[in-house]
């Protein structure tokens, strides 16, 4: 029998503390590095959002929020949340931690490249933050970074800020490519004996397909970033048309701003699903485990993930209905947008049918998973409005859009991330968190999210534009909008403060939490069957597990327990792996 003892080459065995925890090639450490960094920058972006809320509730009351700053906060908040938090945390964090453990591998296929991926990611974060200190500050062009506005005088950060942002994004793309290659290759190559593709948990499917999508979509951002830098520094005219500014003709001529938008959204829309698909996968697993029921329509769930991934490359221009592109494109992209609702709806129905008559345990991860269903359905439905050209045109660039995308790709994945952290924390740390604090954190966050984003739909329908520093005396904006803005800001303050409960719980539990059971939820998937908790270097001790079944054997009639681990042979019991 071949064992790891026979050949140690695939695993890098660190000898020192620095080798083990800093320059680590262990997927679990890299996952934690990714997660901590991503959450760190996420907190920064959260603070920015609260500053924006302060300005919207009390316009002009704060000296440190000037119009330029406000636009810079808007831009940094958006970009950090979408790219540096959600993408990095879901793929770099959860992808790294879960893929090898869930498919029964010892590590990623290319651990060194995996390590490089994290350090390039950190570099991209450093460059991004360095942008705060360059002359003119960071770019204030909005997270979509549309030229010519972003590189023209008058926009905050038009000289240095935009360059730092583009450089940071280009480095991020390199980091992601290194990580993404690893995730995909590991799933294709390193599944343990018996782990067929259709025995993989949905979490792995979500991360796997999202990684492939990232490999396809991020080059578009890379190209757009480099071309913008060329336009900005070298004076090329890829995107910038002839412009007369203050009576002076600028040096550019003939560029196409819409070209940038096509490139950006060719990345930007799949990016929504790069964030959503891992969340879909994880929520499927949370619901199944905590409802003690097999996932309804597993095959359909997997196919839906693949179909959504593929279709998401054909809907990008629904972000561009008002861009001036050929109006006939609108018809095509509205149609494809509505078609993508079909596999998405299949997923939602299957989640609901998994819950149906399940033995539901309202553990905190389950609460977050159910909350996700609410916010995702909500955000999905408002997406149907915006997917239609004629409805989108008046709603474009209003707070309705802000409400929609925060619900569907802000709150929803964040709720899944919280659920996932609560779910896997006992395996990652070997400790349990405090139940009461976690429940309190859940209820404030969930209700608070509605209190923040639901009113935005209404003020959006009144025509309140996004990205405006102040509304001033505007005829069509009634007093109620100002009250709503005040209410939203109060809710945002409460939700913002409530996150302290989460961080306090996670950090204190790390030292004082009760020792966790190796499989506290009675989950069937492989990561809960490791000999050690937290899993040791190499994950599986001397021998890799063999997989005999899918990941959803819950409440099987006649079985001794209400779950059957994936590594339990038919008619037998799962043997713990010798460590």
């Amino acid at each position, binding site marked *: 029998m071949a064992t790891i003892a026979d050949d140690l*080459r695939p695993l890098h065995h660190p000898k020192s503390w620095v080798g083990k925890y800093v320059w680590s090639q262990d997927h679990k450490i890299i996952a934690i590095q990714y997660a901590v960094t991503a959450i760190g920058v996420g907190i920064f972006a959260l603070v920015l959002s609260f500053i924006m809320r302060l300005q919207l509730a009390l316009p002009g009351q704060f000296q440190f929020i000037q119009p330029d700053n406000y636009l810079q906060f808007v831009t940094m908040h958006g970009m950090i949340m979408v790219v540096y938090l959600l993408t990095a945390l879901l793929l770099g964090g959860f992808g790294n931690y879960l893929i090898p453990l869930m498919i029964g591998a010892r590590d990623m296929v290319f651990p060194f490249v995996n390590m490089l991926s994290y350090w390039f990611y950190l570099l991209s974060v450093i460059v991004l933050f360095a942008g705060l200190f360059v002359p003119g500050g960071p770019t204030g062009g909005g997270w979509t970074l549309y030229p010519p506005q972003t590189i023209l005088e008058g926009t905050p950060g038009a000289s240095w800020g935009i360059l730092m942002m583009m450089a940071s994004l280009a480095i991020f793309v390199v980091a992601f490519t290194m990580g993404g290659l690893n995730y995909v290759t590991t799933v294709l190559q390193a599944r343990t004996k018996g782990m067929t593709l*259709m025995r993989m948990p949905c979490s792995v499917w979500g991360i796997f397909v999202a990684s492939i999508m990232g490999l396809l979509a991020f080059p578009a951002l890379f190209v757009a970033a480099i071309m913008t830098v060329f336009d900005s520094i070298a004076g090329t005219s890829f995107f910038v048309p002839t412009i007369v500014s203050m009576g002076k003709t600028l040096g550019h001529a003939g560029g196409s701003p819409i070209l940038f938008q096509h490139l950006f959204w060719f990345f930007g829309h799949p990016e929504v699903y790069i964030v959503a698909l891992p969340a879909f996968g994880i929520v499927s697993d949370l619901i199944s485990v905590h409802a003690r029921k097999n996932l309804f329509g597993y095959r359909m769930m997997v196919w839906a993930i693949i179909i959504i991934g593929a279709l998401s490359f054909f809907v990008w221009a629904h972000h561009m209905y008002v861009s001036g592109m050929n109006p006939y494109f609108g018809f095509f992209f509205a149609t494809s947008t509505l078609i993508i609702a079909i596999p998405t709806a299949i997923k939602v129905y299957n989640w609901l049918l998994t819950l149906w008559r399940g033995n539901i345990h309202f553990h905190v991860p389950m609460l977050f998973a159910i909350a996700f269903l609410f916010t995702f359905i909500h955000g999905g439905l408002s997406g149907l409005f915006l997917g239609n050209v004629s409805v989108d045109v008046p709603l474009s660039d209003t707070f309705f859009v802000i409400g929609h995308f925060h619900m569907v790709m802000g709150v929803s994945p964040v709720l899944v991330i919280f659920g996932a952290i609560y779910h896997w924390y006992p395996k990652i740390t070997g400790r349990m968190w405090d139940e009461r604090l976690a429940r309190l954190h859940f209820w404030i966050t969930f209700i608070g999210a509605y209190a923040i984003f639901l009113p935005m739909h209404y003020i959006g329908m009144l025509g309140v534009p996004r990205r405006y520093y102040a509304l001033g005396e505007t005829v069509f904006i009634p007093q109620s909008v100002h009250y709503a803005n005040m209410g939203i800001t109060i809710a945002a303050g409460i939700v913002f403060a409530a996150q302290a409960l989460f961080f306090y719980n996670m950090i204190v539990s790390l030292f004082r939490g009760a020792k966790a059971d190796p499989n506290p939820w009675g989950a069937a998937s492989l990561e809960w069957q490791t000999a050690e908790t937290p899993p040791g270097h190499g994950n599986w001790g001397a021998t890799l597990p063999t997989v005999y079944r899918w990941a959803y054997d819950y409440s099987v009639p006649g079985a001794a327990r209400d779950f059957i681990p994936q590594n339990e042979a038919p008619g037998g019991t799962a043997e713990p792996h010798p460590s």
Partner: protein
Amino acid sequence: MSLFAALTDKPWLSPGLGAEARARPDERPGPWDKGIGLGLFLFVVTMLFVLLTAAYLMRMGAHGGAEAGSGSHGASHWHAVGEPPLLWINTAMLVASSIVFHAALTATRAGPSLASRALLLVGGLLGIAFLAGQIALWRILDDCTHALALGDAACAVRAAAPASAAPVWAANPATAFFYLISGLHGLHILGGLAAWALTGKRVLAGGAGIVRAVQLCARYWDYMLLVWLVMMGLFVST
């Protein structure tokens, strides 16, 4: 098992081990083969250059059609790069490099020898020569004294817009695209040279897996050649 069969499997019906899994060892000895990883990377590279091609064509077609006979595309300020002789020489160098890499692979398969090492060395050197040629080509395209050789295209826009502070190559979007695309391609060649250096080190050290390393090196080189031929086709045909 075909992909279709794999994806239509009903995993809840059949606990146990399939014949394929039973035949597998409990753990495959490492290190992992890099073929799939390289394939995926080339997939990313393809995406990058497909997007650049799309951007090239969209930018070229922006603001109306071509003005007959002039090679200029109306308000898009587009002037085709033309076919400087160095373009063909560089391409020939990359083709030669790819052929030599294949010869090196054949020789390595026959067993480690001086010839196989020499061929590997020459293949990489030709890659370096290609890069040097490309840099020379960039200098030519940025220099209006060579305008005659280039059919006066490179400097036409620059001359028409004396107010522009942009360098010659940047004023004409066709040339700017040439710089962008050939620059990114050059960076990939540079990355390939790093892999080539590592492969060379492995070949000199000897041991298992040399043939596969040279094979993957040659595969990457072939692909970069293919990308370049397509890109060059784009430049000379538009």
